[in-house]
């Protein structure tokens, strides 16, 4: 492939996002010998350009006040102006990628290759990747025809961050980003509520997911947490159902926690949930589904019915006292 390879560099508060380092590595792994070009869009982005230049062959800077907040509806037409037909663009599979990527691929006439977790080869114009389906319960090899280019979104953690090399040249292309308008305008950012407990500071978390089945069964988890002297957290479906507060949600759309011990009760283990657990805790998974992806990452696994198992466990812990 002699297509140009681009990496969209996400950044915040003057620093490149971790994804930029992983995408630079992904670009070189998928397209060996390519000279990946970083795209940095924003307002006051010199520091970010300098930070990522050692990862890339070249960095294109798009510095405009209008790009001060990353609005995909502005950045999509900007990229359409500057990316040649047939190119490959890599971006992170996150909420900005959801916004930008699918529409960009349509407008470029390029193939959309979403949520790549692994690379499995490139032959001529067929890119072979690994994806996950059904909430991570099974994986799939997928062949993508990228003869007309591709927009590829890469899951966080799928590639090890790139090491710094000789710094690529920074090219100021801000003039190409002038006069952009969009039918969607950013108003404000509302920070997540703190909630009644700060689960990010807890050493031991007893975390409950959809497998608990019913709101009234949450009491079984509360009793276990109380017996252990631990705090209770949860996965997203429990917050969606309004059984617990948002402040207790672990995951990419909730809190990032770093406990020493983490009990995942009835949690299947979606990458969004696992993305919120850092620091490699002693992770115990209890789930009635032996195929639940959580068992791939847990330290210890138990296949059991929570409603029967939790009272037995709580009673044994109570007896220690």
């Amino acid at each position, binding site marked *: 492939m002699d297509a140009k390879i681009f990496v969209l560099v996400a950044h915040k508060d003057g620093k490149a996002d971790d994804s930029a380092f992983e995408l630079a590595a992904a670009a070189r792994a998928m397209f060996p010998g390519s000279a990946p070009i970083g795209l940095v869009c924003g307002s006051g982005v010199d520091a970010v350009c300098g930070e990522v230049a050692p990862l890339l062959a070249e960095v294109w800077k798009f510095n405009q006040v209008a790009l001060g907040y990353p609005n995909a509806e502005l950045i999509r037409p900007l990229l359409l102006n500057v990316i040649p037909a047939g190119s490959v663009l890599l971006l992170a599979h996150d909420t900005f990628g959801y916004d930008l990527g699918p*529409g960009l691929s349509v407008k470029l006439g390029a193939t959309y290759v*979403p949520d790549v977790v692994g690379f499995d080869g490139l032959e001529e114009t067929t890119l072979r990747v690994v994806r996950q389906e059904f909430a991570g319960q099974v994986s799939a090899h997928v062949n993508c025809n990228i003869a007309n280019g591709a927009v590829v979104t890469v899951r966080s953690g799928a590639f090890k961050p790139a090491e710094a090399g000789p710094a690529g040249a920074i090219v100021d292309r801000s003039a190409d980003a002038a006069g952009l308008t969009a039918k969607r305008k950013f108003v404000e950012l509302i920070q997540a509520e703190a909630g009644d407990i700060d689960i990010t500071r807890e050493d031991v978390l007893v975390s409950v997911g959809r497998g608990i089945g019913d709101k009234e069964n949450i009491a079984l988890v509360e009793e276990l947490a109380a017996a252990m002297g631990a705090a209770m957290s949860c996965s997203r479906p429990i917050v969606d159902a309004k059984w617990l507060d948002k402040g207790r949600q672990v995951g990419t759309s909730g809190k990032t926690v770093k406990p020493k011990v983490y009990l995942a009760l009835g949690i299947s283990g979606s990458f969004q949930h696992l993305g919120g657990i850092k620091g490699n805790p002693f992770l115990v998974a209890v789930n009635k589904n032996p195929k639940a992806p959580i068992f791939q990452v847990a330290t210890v696994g138990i296949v*059991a019915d929570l409603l029967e198992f939790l009272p037995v466990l709580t009673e044994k812990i109570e007896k220690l006292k």
Partner: protein
Amino acid sequence: MEILVCVKRVPDSAENEISVGPGGTDIKRDDLVYSVNEWDNYAVEEAIQIVERDGGNVTVVSVGDSEAEDIVRREMAMGANNGLLATDAAFEGSDGLGVATILAAAATKASYDLILTGALADGGAAQVGGMIAALLDLPYASVVNKIETKDGKSLRIGREIEGGNQEVSDIELPCVLSIQTGINEPRYVGIRGIRKVASVEIPVLDAGALGIAAGSVGAAGAKVKRVDYFVPVAGAGAEMLTGSNDELASKLVELLKAKGGIK
């Protein structure tokens, strides 16, 4: 407001153990429990709430066969006014862009102010809504967790971004939004509701009716093709404990004590 909601019939991954079938070409589909994609159900509820507040109609559309029709009917039992089914042998094997092309064509059959999809479905791609928007040249926002109607010309929306923060924007109508779970509490659909819509005629649109050229969608038009399903070789994987509940609990208590999990 005239609202179109795109829905998909999927194996319910919360209710099913998904495993790979013989030869890896498909998952084992016998005995799977199917339902409407969870995110789509929130999208339909949101549309119904908007129409209850501001007037208009909710139309639900799905790409698929007679089984997808059951899903459309279920969402009509929830309160959607109309249903549409896009069915054609030529649609089978469509990739994300194929599905988006079919839905975009269905959307042009009437004049909609707002098109909703779920933010994600069973494939985890989060792609169809953004593609529909691009195909129809409409503004788009993904993972929407709040919609406020304003003057009929625009909406104030919230997007759920990383860390649970909410990004608030104004977006012009008509537009396409993908809906995040938790935006509302989808209403319960009772047997009575299902019975009420059991015999409602649901119009079927084929490739001809939608003006879609054969070969542009379906397996023939797909540029993204699944080769096989597999179960990844787990790294170390979990050490699985076995025994009765009593034995399991005893083993776990010892481990938790050793790791400082019991204070």
